C-alpha cells in the first residue's frame, strides 16, 4: 500500500517547526506503525536526509515512550492501543496520515516528534512513592488486602506514563496520569500511611508544571492506551479534599 505522511519536523526546542510531506510507497499492511517510520527513515538516510526523530523502546506496549499524535488522536485510531502496537492494516491505501508530537506547554518539543516528558517524572519525584522500610521483606499475609481493592489498585498501576491523556485532553490536563499514580497507592494499606501528604505534593507539582485544569470531558479516558478509568480522577479529588480539610500543615 502507498500512504502520504505529513510529519512535524522541528530541529530543536528553540526553533520553529513545520510539516513536511513524505509520500511512501510499498508499505506492508503487516508493518507496525513504528516499522513504517523505520522504513521511511531508511529511505531518508539513503537519500542523505535527516531521519525523523521519534521515541520508542519496548515496542510491545509497556514502556510508554512511543507517543505520537496520529490523525487527530494520541496513539492513532485504535482504542486501548499504543503507537507501537498499531499496524498499518488500520489505514487505507492512499491515506494521508498526519503525525504530530504531543502538544502541551508542559511537554516541550525536543526534536521532531520527541517531547520532553520530565514534568511527569517530577510529579512522581514529588511524592509518588512509599517510603521504604529497610530489612528483609515482611510476611505477605501480615498486611491483608481484599481482592477487589488489589485489582482496582492494579487497574491504576498499569499506567505506563505515556502522556496520551495530556495529549488527548482539550485542556492539556495531566489529571488522569496523576490520578492513576495517586490511586495505585491510596487504596492499599501500604500506601494509606502517607496518602494525605502524597496527594497534596503531587497535585501541587502537577499544577506547577503548567498542565491545564480538568473540566471532566473524559477525553483522557477515551484515548488512554491502558484503559485507565476517569473514576480515579474522582478518587484523587476526594483524596485531595480530605488532605486539605483533615491533613496536617506541611512544612
Amino acid at each position, binding site marked *: 500500500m502507498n500512504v502520504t505522511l505529513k510529519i512535524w519536523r522541528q530541529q530543536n526546542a528553540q526553533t520553529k517547526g513545520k510539516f513536511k510531506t513524505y509520500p511512501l510507497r510499498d508499505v506492508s499492511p503487516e508493518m507496525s506503525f513504528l516499522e513504517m517510520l523505520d522504513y521511511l527513515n531508511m529511505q531518508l538516510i539513503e537519500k542523505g536526509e535527516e531521519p525523523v526523530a521519534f521515541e520508542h523502546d519496548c515496542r510491545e506496549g509497556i514502556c510508554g515512550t512511543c507517543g505520537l499524535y496520529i490523525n487527530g488522536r494520541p496513539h492513532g485510531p485504535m482504542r486501548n492501543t499504543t503507537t507501537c502496537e498499531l499496524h498499518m492494516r488500520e489505514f487505507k491505501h492512499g491515506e494521508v496520515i498526519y503525525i504530530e508530537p504531543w502538544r502541551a506547554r508542559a511537554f516541550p518539543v525536543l526534536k521532531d516528534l520527541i517531547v520532553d516528558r520530565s514534568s511527569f517524572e517530577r510529579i512522581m519525584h514529588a511524592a509518588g512513592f512509599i517510603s521504604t522500610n529497610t530489612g528483609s521483606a515482611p510476611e505477605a499475609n501480615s498486611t491483608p488486602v481484599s481482592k477487589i481493592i488489589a485489582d482496582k489498585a492494579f487497574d491504576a498501576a498499569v499506567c505506563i506514563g505515556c502522556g496520551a491523556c495530556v495529549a488527548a485532553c482539550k485542556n*492539556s490536563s495531566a489529571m488522569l496520569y496523576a490520578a492513576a499514580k495517586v490511586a495505585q497507592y491510596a487504596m492499599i494499606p501500604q500506601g494509606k500511611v502517607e496518602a494525605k501528604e502524597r496527594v497534596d505534593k503531587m497535585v501541587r507539582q502537577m499544577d506547577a508544571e503548567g498542565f491545564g485544569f480538568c473540566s471532566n470531558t473524559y477525553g483522557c479516558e477515551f484515548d488512554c492506551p491502558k484503559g485507565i478509568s476517569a473514576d480515579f480522577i474522582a478518587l484523587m479529588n476526594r483524596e485531595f479534599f480530605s488532605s486539605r480539610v483533615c491533613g496536617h500543615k506541611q512544612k
Partner: protein
Amino acid sequence: MALAGIFLMLFLISHLLTNLLMLAADGGKAFDRAVELLGHPAVKIVEYTLFAAFLIHILLGVILQLINYRARPVKYKKAPRTEISTFSRYMFHTGIIIFVFLVIHLINFFFVRMGWAPLPETAAHSHDFRPMAVALFQNPWYSGFYVISMLFLGFHLKHGFQSAFQSLGLNHTKYTPAIKIIGTLYAIFISVGFAIIPVYFLFFFSS
C-alpha cells in the same frame, strides 16, 4: 467552582417553580405572593449568597479557561478526533451565553426592583413582575432570545451536573450512572420549564 455550581443549580429549581406560578389560572396571585417573600430578611441572605455564587463561579470559570488556553501554546494541525461530549467541549461558550442572558435579565427585572431602571408603564409597582414579563415575552425577539438562552443553559447543566459530582470526588460505581441520568433529566426540566413561560405568553395568552 463545583460548590458554587451546585448552589446555582438549587437556586434554578426554586426560581423556576416560582416563575411557573405565573402560568397559574389565578391571574398571578400566587406568583405575587411568592414575590413578596423576596423582601424577607432570610431571603435577603440567600440573595447575597447567590450573587457571591455567581461571581465565584464566573470568575473561576474564566480563570480556568485562560489557564487551559495557555496550557497548549501550539495547537494540533489535524482537528482532534478524541471523542468527548459536545456539551463538555463548549462549557465556557455556553457559560458566556448564560452570562449575557443574565445581564439582560438583571436589567429587565432586578434593576427595576432596585429602582435603578425606570418602571415600565405596564407595572403597578417595582415588584409587579408578571406584567413586566408578559410585556417582554409578547415581543417575539425577546421570547426567542429567552428560549435560545434556556437551551444553552440546558447544555451547560447537562454536563455541569455530573461534572460537579466528579469534581467533588463523589463518584461511585453504583450511584454515578444514576447521577448522570438525574443530571440529564434536571437539565431538560430546567431548560424546558423556563422556556414554556415565554412560549405561553407569546402564543396562548391575551391580556
